[in-house]
């Protein structure tokens, strides 16, 4: 039996126009809404698969504002059984702070007998893209860590993980407990059922207050790349534009194989 902890982060959606807060310290998500990184969608799917295959449970955790309960409920709706909100002012947090906050929860749960054989995270967060939390967490917990992993299988006290390397598929083996950072692409996240959503609403979310003074992220300010004025040349409308398109492809030297 392997109990799995899967860590997610509430991040702005990626389907609309990006705006920044007036103080240039954060993304203003008013037009894009909130979601989790695609890597984390896959991590949640893998967490529920491993838990189900081994007779364990999957617990979802996030470090963030009280509003991040929305993302915890989404994970509960697709198979996680328990949820932990580490409430924190994450605008002041860097990757080392997030990793330390997660490690504190893992240790606290271990102290009362809730031991996670596997901790899953996304490779990096869709907003900050630090690529450090999984590794900092693993080192804090003194556990081995793999990143950019597509699929995992647990057999007894060992883990087999698959990922894509420069020369093809790579297979890793690790003893448990371990930390694994997941890259999108190995599994298709499931959609929540109505039943799943109803069940998720009833789960009591454990709330912890992060009480460490953060070391911070080093952020000075955010900016948006200057938007270039559109200089698009419209070649035409509909199928009638085909000759103009092929003329262009010929000029660019790519019309022949």
């Amino acid at each position, binding site marked *: 039996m392997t109990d799995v902890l899967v860590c997610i982060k509430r991040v702005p959606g*990626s389907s609309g126009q*990006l705006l*920044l807060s007036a103080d240039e310290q954060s*993304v203003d998500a008013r037009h*894009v809404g909130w979601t989790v990184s*695609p*890597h984390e969608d896959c991590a949640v799917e893998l967490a529920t698969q491993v838990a189900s295959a081994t007779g364990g449970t999957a617990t979802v955790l996030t470090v963030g504002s009280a509003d991040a309960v929305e993302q915890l409920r989404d994970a509960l709706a697709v198979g996680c059984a328990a949820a932990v909100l580490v409430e924190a002012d994450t605008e002041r947090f860097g990757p080392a702070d997030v990793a330390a906050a997660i490690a504190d929860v893992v240790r606290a749960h271990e102290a009362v007998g809730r031991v996670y054989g596997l901790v899953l995270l996304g490779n*990096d967060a*869709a907003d900050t*893209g*630090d*690529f450090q939390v*999984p*590794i*900092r967490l693993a*080192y804090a917990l003194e556990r*081995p*860590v*793999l*990143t*950019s992993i597509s699929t995992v299988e647990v057999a007894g006290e060992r883990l087999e993980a*698959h990922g894509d*390397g420069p*020369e*093809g*598929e*790579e*297979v*890793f*083996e*690790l*003893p448990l407990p371990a930390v694994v950072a997941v*890259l*999108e*692409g190995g599994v298709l996240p499931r959609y929540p059922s109505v039943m799943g959503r109803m069940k998720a609403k009833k789960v009591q979310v454990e709330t912890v207050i992060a009480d460490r003074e953060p070391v911070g992220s*080093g*952020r*000075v*300010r*955010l900016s948006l*790349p200057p938007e270039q004025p*559109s200089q*698009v*040349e*419209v*070649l*035409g*409308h*509909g*199928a009638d534009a*085909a000759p*103009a*398109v*092929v003329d*262009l*492809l010929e000029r*660019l030297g*790519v*019309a*022949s194989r």
Partner: protein
Amino acid sequence: MIVVLVEIEQGNATVVSREALTFARDLARGPVHAVVVGGSEVGPVVLAELAEQGVAQVHHATDEWLSTYAGAAWAALLVDVAQSVDARVVLAAGTPRGMDVLARVAVRTGAPMAANVVGVESVDPYVVVRQVVGGSALEQMRLDGDLAVLSVAGHACEPVAVAEPTTPDVTVVSPALSDADLLGRVVRTGDKAVDESAAITSARVVVGAGRGAGSADGFKDVLALADLLGGALGVSRVVTSLGWRPHHEQVGQTGSRISPDVYIPCGISGAIQHWAGCQSAKTILAINSDPDAPMVTRAHYAVVGDLHEIVPAINDELRRRRRG
């Protein structure tokens, strides 16, 4: 002093590693040290590529234990080299391996790390500019301390050769490794085809398709266009999320980052997720029914209308001209 991890693929320093070397050279204004892992010797091709990048010294790890990838062991090596030359910066391309190794270096040394760096504004202390939100925003970030760990965003700069190539010294290095350093080692390679995403990252032409394809059966015409142009098919995330096409064809923040000569996105709106992966294309020809879609307004050229009418017409025109 700057130490750069150089990744080798099929007997060459990777393009992104050579980009990282150019970036390091501009930043260092002095000798750049390269770290190469694996093989019994640094081949003449790689050595010439490093010389063209102005590398002063190559630190080559030949240990059998390092011949297959092990992130912690590679990090131990980089830390050893960085300490031996009193480096101020450890740097690598922002590849999965580069990021994996650098994050471990940061933890082992207590140094701050910045991922996906595109520029450096000052060096004392280091203030860098890096991509966040998939390149849709930039973060100015300060790194305090004696050592800074930086990954360079792909295509942040072109690899530029120095006017007079150097003659790098090659030193064999062998880090002291613990059992823990070798725990996450690749134990074997799997059956899956070699790097399936290579087709879209190396193609001169990529034809893109999004939700506008309509269904898993809606890719026949875009595939035919890609084939006629000797290119590859790239798709948006919604397409892979719906299971219509495999993930290795996905272009975007969590898919492949492409930089073809020509990108032809068909029925792709140009959301943040997708734009992050295709913005380095040299020419973009958008085909879209919405003339105000971000992909259209950011493109160099556009055709407005239904891709299911336009793409077959382009295919017919290409075939007609080839028949002469």
